[in-house]
């Protein structure tokens, strides 16, 4: 018989202490971020800092309840819980309230709750349950499809709510799947896709396709022919590229040349019947075509599908501001140069006008947010400006200071010492979670542990990355720190279910 008096038996105090430290850091920094001289008590419940204390209180009660439950409860009810939450995600689409363009809130009187927050732990539970079933092997296509469906279903529903940030969080599950046997190439492939994405935006699709062509010729000729063919091919290719850049030929020429070469290659393969292992040639051509299509799709998606404000979130990071300033300067020089007729001058002037407008948009919108965020953190210096002394914070230069941009307040008032401590606490918690997960005897608990670590890590990565200008602006909270009941509770539930499962690991048979 279990004894309720001993609910703390075998719990991992290291994780709990790290959790409490984060919650406390969050609370005092919310106080600093929205500090109001008329309501200077940190307990004043009319202010966010007072409310956060109430949310913290509820969170601790939730934690206690979870610890009082039996671990068996979560394994047994994993799918029902997933079902209920998925239902609520559908329901919120129909009857939910819209805030900041996202239809993701249930409003009951003054009380607002965001089901997508709770979808995180529900999804992990369901995934853990599925992957811990007997006769499951990650190498099976069926397993992969089902696992991706379990993850993808809530992600799609949340995307329909117009909450892109929360949707992206589900990408974090790639770490869980990787640990459970998904090929590591998937991780590398994802990384490669991101790198190509960024390079395409910086250098333009043509340059990247030319580079890809070079790499393709190199590998293909090395793989299937001798060194002589490789060198000759690359020399020819280099001459072509040189002519292309030197005479500033039209982009279309590249497409014609590549298309022509591929058709020629295909024809060659079909005619030459004696050639062995034809399949590998076809695969090679296929991979190259797919690569080119991907590169085009980046350019297309970015310029045609994404909205202006979404684009600026990314372009700001890529130094778009400096680029625009430089372009405007160059255009001005061109306009004022000699030997330019009125018509041309007018065209250039219009171009300058358009670029100036984009620059203004950039500087006032997301560009401004990132700049102010960096100024806040950067001006904190080594030891910070002091508690309640952050001018960027106090005078509202940073947007969303108590929620998504809470890291700015910490950076400004506590300096590098504060930010370093915070980053350390997070990394320590993630590593502790992995360490505990690996100790689990049941696959369910291990998958769940990795899920918790991955979800928390993804929030950490994107939120802080955004504040320090390394990631695009994506509105997701910093776990345990950002203001808000729903997010605090969901992260608390997420973590404490694992702490509960971990405390019972010795009772579980493999």
């Amino acid at each position, binding site marked *: 018989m279990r004894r309720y008096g001993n609910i703390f038996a075998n719990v991992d105090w290291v994780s709990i202490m790290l959790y409490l430290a984060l919650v406390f850091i969050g609370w005092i920094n919310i106080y600093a971020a929205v500090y109001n001289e008329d309501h200077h008590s940190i307990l004043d419940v009319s202010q966010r800092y007072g409310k956060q204390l109430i949310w913290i209180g509820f969170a601790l009660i939730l934690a206690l309840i979870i610890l009082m439950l039996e671990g068996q409860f979560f394994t047994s009810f994993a799918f029902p819980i997933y079902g209920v939450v998925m239902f609520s995600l559908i329901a919120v689409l129909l009857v939910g309230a819209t805030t900041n363009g996202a239809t993701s809130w249930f409003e009951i009187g003054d009380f607002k709750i965001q089901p997508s927050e709770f979808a995180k732990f529900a999804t992990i539970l369901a995934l853990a349950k599925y992957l811990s079933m007997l006769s499951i092997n990650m190498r099976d296509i069926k397993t992969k499809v089902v696992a991706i469906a379990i993850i993808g279903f809530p992600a799609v529903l949340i995307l329909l709510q117009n909450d892109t940030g929360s949707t992206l969080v589900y990408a974090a599950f790639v770490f869980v799947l*990787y*640990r459970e046997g998904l090929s590591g190439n998937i991780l590398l492939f994802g990384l490669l896709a991101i790198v190509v994405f960024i390079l395409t935006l910086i250098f333009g699709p043509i340059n990247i396709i030319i580079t890809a062509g070079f790499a393709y010729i190199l590998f293909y000729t090395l793989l299937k022919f001798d060194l002589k063919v490789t060198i000759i091919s690359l020399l020819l290719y280099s001459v072509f590229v040189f002519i292309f850049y030197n005479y500033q030929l039209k982009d279309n020429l590249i497409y014609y040349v590549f298309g022509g070469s591929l058709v020629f290659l295909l024809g060659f393969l079909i005619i030459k019947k004696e050639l062995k292992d034809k399949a590998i040639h076809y695969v090679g051509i296929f991979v190259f075509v797919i690569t080119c299509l991907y590169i085009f799709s980046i350019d297309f998606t970015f310029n045609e599908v994404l909205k202006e404000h979404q684009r600026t979130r990314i372009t700001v990071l890529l130094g778009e501001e400096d680029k625009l300033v430089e372009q405007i300067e160059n255009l001005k020089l061109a306009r004022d140069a000699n030997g330019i007729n009125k018509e041309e001058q007018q065209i250039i002037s219009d171009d300058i006008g358009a670029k100036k407008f984009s620059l203004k948009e950039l500087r006032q919108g997301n560009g401004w947010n990132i700049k102010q965020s960096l100024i806040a*953190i950067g001006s904190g210096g080594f030891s910070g400006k002091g508690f309640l002394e952050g001018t960027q914070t*106090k*005078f*509202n*230069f940073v947007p969303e200071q108590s929620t998504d941009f809470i890291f700015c307040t910490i950076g400004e008032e506590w300096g590098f010492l504060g930010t370093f401590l915070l*980053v350390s606490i997070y990394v320590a918690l993630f590593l502790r979670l992995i360490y505990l997960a690996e100790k689990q005897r049941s696959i369910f608990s291990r998958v769940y542990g990795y899920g918790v*670590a991955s979800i928390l890590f993804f929030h950490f990565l994107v939120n802080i990355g955004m504040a*320090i200008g390394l990631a695009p602006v994506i509105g997701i909270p910093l776990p345990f720190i950002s203001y808000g009941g729903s997010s605090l509770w969901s992260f608390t539930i997420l973590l404490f279910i694992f702490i509960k499962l971990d405390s019972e690991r010795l009772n579980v048979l493999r």
Partner: protein
Amino acid sequence: MKNLSNRKFIVGIIFLVIGLVFTVRLFTIQVLNDKYKVDSDNNVLRELVEYPARGLVYDRNGELLVYNEAAYDLMVLPKQVKEVDTLAFCSLLEITKEEFKEKIEKAKSFSYYKPSIFLKEISSISYANIQEQLFKYPGFFVQTRTLRKYPRNSAAHILGYIGEVSQSLIDENPYYRSGDYIGKSGLENSYEYLLRGQRGVKRILVDVHNREKGSYLDGATDTMAITGSSIKTTIDIVLQEYGELLMQNKKGSIVAIDPKTGEILSLVSAPNYDPNMLVGRAVKKNYPVLSMDSLNPLFNRALMAQYPPGSIFKTIQALIGMEDEVITENSGFSCIKSLVNCHNHPTAGNVAASVKMSCNPYYYQVFKKIIQQNKAKSFYKDSEIGLGLWSEQVKKFGFGVKLATDLPGVKKGNVPDVKFYNKWYGQGRWAFSTIYSLSIGQGEVEVIPLQMANLAAIIANRGYFYTPHFLKEIDKTDTIPSQFTTKNMVGIQDKYFTPILEGMYGVVNEPGGTARRAKIHDGIIVCGKTGTAQNPHGEDHSVFIAFAPKDDPKIAIAVYVENSGFGGTWAAPIASLMIEKYLTDSISTANLPKEQRILEANLMDVKVKK
């Protein structure tokens, strides 16, 4: 299958690497990079500059000469400017739409978040109109500045004007900032450091909406504005105005000095201008007009015009001759017109008579004795020694040297010395016969009217002078620079002045004197000396120096009227009117016709000889 549990290291390393990347990035922006600290300060710190009132300027009797009048700069904060009815706004400010666009663009290019000047120096009348409407135009507000105002409309050349500080000066002197005002000429320039005061700076914190949020560091770095010192000048504004009145329609100048102290009572340069013309926005319109004027009203003749002194120079020659003991006060020389031309008069039997009758051959012979003292055998060498000694003596009278007065731009004139002629003619190629014109104040000698007035003061003082100056008191204390309170001896013994004074008495008061018109009445004895400077470009210039009363001189004066002929005709009566005005505060009935004649005279349109 590989051992999947090894993948925990891969995942752990990924987490650690990201943590490390963040730490490096944070270290870079928080510890290594100072740019963000500056940006943060720029965000929240605003400097409110409090401009001190510039010091006031008074005349010797406490009459206000220069004060400050409030003016308003319309400021703009581009960030807060909303789409408004531009047309109405432009008509309110009396500017065109193009100007509006240009000004807004200029402000934006300066800073989007910081205020800059949109329209400068709005008068208080326009301000009243604009202020009523201003609430309709967010982003615009008014900042108070002060403009100089000259209630007496005179003494422009003395007082000078202020203007915006130039970029070269900003680079040179860290005190000044773009948009500051600085004295450009006159006393405004020479006493800039007294008049300007000290700018006050208040640092405040503002929030993202530019709302004030309190003072920076509780005001620890704030400074109070310190009002400029007020200065009392030596000018007698009534006399100054009278002088300007007498000089209307004439070209020339009047300088009056109190010989006992060197205080300049008035300094007139004609033609002149109203000092209020060079204030504020009017400068843009008026300055080109004044500087293009062919009569050159901006030119301060009293300090910058270098003329031959003419016969007033004979007083110096006589004094040097006696001091050198080459003549005595009873030396007589006959009027030999073949030496140098002269008018008809009885033979001058002594120094006093020669001064009274202004005999040219007399001074030819005196100067010959001064220059040729037989100190060397060579004819040329002897002249060289003589001229060397002579020029040193003349320079002690303040001629040929820059009088260290307190206005900028003073010229030093020219007293030719050995070096000068050696350069001009070549060494050993000149002698007395080459330079004899100097004997009667013609030729290469040049002086400014201030030096002439100073000569009158030296004679009145019987041998010394104080450097002429304008500063009397600073903030009601009369400590003025020691250069103005040091007695400058001219190196001539007291006794040699007696015959000069006697002669100058005769000039005005005895039959045969050259300036009988300068006599006021028996109550005030004026001593004077006329001069007529030959002018190769036109009618001769008329000169007169004088002082009065004879036995207790209170005023020494020099009047120089260009192109007006003989010194006794115009310069002398003007001097006498000035003296009478200063000593008695009015013009006696008997002298009113004299005043009338001067006021009606127009000596501007004298034909210029080609």
